[in-house]
């Protein structure tokens, strides 16, 4: 196909691209290390305390993995990755406010805040990538991205810190508002699963709309489009 039939659309700014990939690496590290930590005791409780010999909220159908070589480094890695994500997220947040990324590209348009435009997004995806979404995010993406960035991820930090006896010695409200130490652990697990669910949907949409071209866009910044026959 001749070059003239492909046009390139600038899609992602450099700061979005760089922070996206650091975030992706950090998320992967958190998931892997989080699983390593969870497997030391794959039971969830509600309230302040809980252990073997006390009733659980749920016994996850997972094995107890107590090898020191997995548990210890899991914890080290979990905290290192959390710090990377905190710095990375702060850069993204400040840059996003400065460049009006949130207002211009992520805050849903008022006209889109209705059932019909949202349904249209879903229907469109079964008919191939829609033309009007090429230069920006659709309304459902905006909702989910904002929800992940401003609700789920901050909650991961809050519920994670709520499990630290040092942090809660300074801010007891952190763990008390979540219903106790074991409740904080359970909620951290639930929110982590919601993030994983988001990740799975994110991957699914990537494959539906073209894995290679979308990945390339997140690396180079440009989305290559085949010109439609007029």
């Amino acid at each position: 196909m001749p070059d003239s039939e492909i046009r390139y659309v600038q899609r992602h700014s450099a700061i979005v691209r760089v922070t996206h990939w650091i975030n992706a690496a950090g998320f992967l590290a958190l998931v892997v290390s989080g699983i390593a930590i969870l497997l030391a005791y794959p039971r969830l409780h509600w309230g302040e305390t809980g252990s073997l010999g006390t009733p659980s909220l749920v016994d996850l159908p997972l094995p107890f993995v107590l090898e020191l070589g997995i548990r210890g480094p899991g914890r080290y890695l979990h905290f290192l990755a959390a710090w990377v994500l905190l710095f990375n997220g702060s850069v993204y947040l400040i840059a996003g406010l400065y460049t009006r990324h949130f207002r211009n590209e992520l805050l849903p348009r008022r006209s889109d805040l209705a059932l019909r435009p949202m349904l249209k997004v879903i229907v469109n995806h079964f008919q191939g990538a829609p033309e009007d979404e090429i230069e920006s995010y659709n309304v459902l993406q905006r909702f989910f991205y904002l929800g992940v960035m401003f609700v789920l991820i901050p909650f991961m930090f809050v519920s994670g810190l709520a499990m630290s006896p040092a942090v809660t010695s300074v801010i007891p409200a952190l763990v008390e508002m979540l219903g106790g130490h074991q409740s904080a652990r359970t909620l951290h697990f639930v929110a982590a699963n919601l993030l994983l669910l988001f990740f799975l949907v994110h991957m699914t949409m990537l494959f539906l709309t073209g894995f290679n071209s979308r990945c390339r866009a997140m690396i180079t910044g440009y989305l290559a489009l085949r010109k439609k026959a007029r």
Partner: protein
Amino acid sequence: MSAILSRRKFITASLATATGVAGVSVAARIADGYGLLAPDHGGIFGAGEALTYGAQRLLMSVHSRAREFGRGDISRVSPVNHAHPRFDPYERLLYNKFADWRFYVDGLVERPAAFSLDDLKRMPSRTQITQLICEEGWSFIAAWTGVPLSHILQLVGAHPSAKWVLFYPFDDFWGSIDMPEALHPQTLLAYGMNGEDLSADHGAPVRLRIPRQLGYKNLKFLARISVTDRLDNVGDGNGSAAPGLGYSWYGGI
């Protein structure tokens, strides 16, 4: 032109990297001066550990107290992770109900001392109902009774230059805590639990109880403590046996 540009870029990048490395090492030195640098700050996970300890130590400079609970909150079940040592001299001491046991305090102190269990029990005591949180994920609440470590350090005259207290149990799981944690009012050398003598599996005759840190920092079966101003010449230099097993030295997480 592009060669010049790339050389310029190369020089800029090198300068930025050099500045970054110098900045990090200066930051580490300043943090160390203020007692904010964890002993296990080296290695691939070191940066995370250094940040976590530095940040939490700063946060706790308000002299915070771990949450305390009521009598009604005490858990019915109090699991044990590592049973007591099955070797001498521990078993022999246990057999004699620790009558021959002595608790040695040495290092940077005016008056090194050896205390018997009765000596410790005659000292001012404190009972606190706190939660023990295992790094594995489970937790329980119990009432611990013991001597505040600060009392012992005062008694032996810990040197003002002291920065750490080392703990040596009868097993190999040695460790250390920083001075602010050692002098904290909730830091106990606990000999009692839930109104009874500490059981062997819970760390008899005496265990360290620091409720602002996870269970594995609350060392059991203590034989000796030592006051010091440096950790780099102790063991592998990481402040405790934990980093050697993959765990962070700091357990406030």
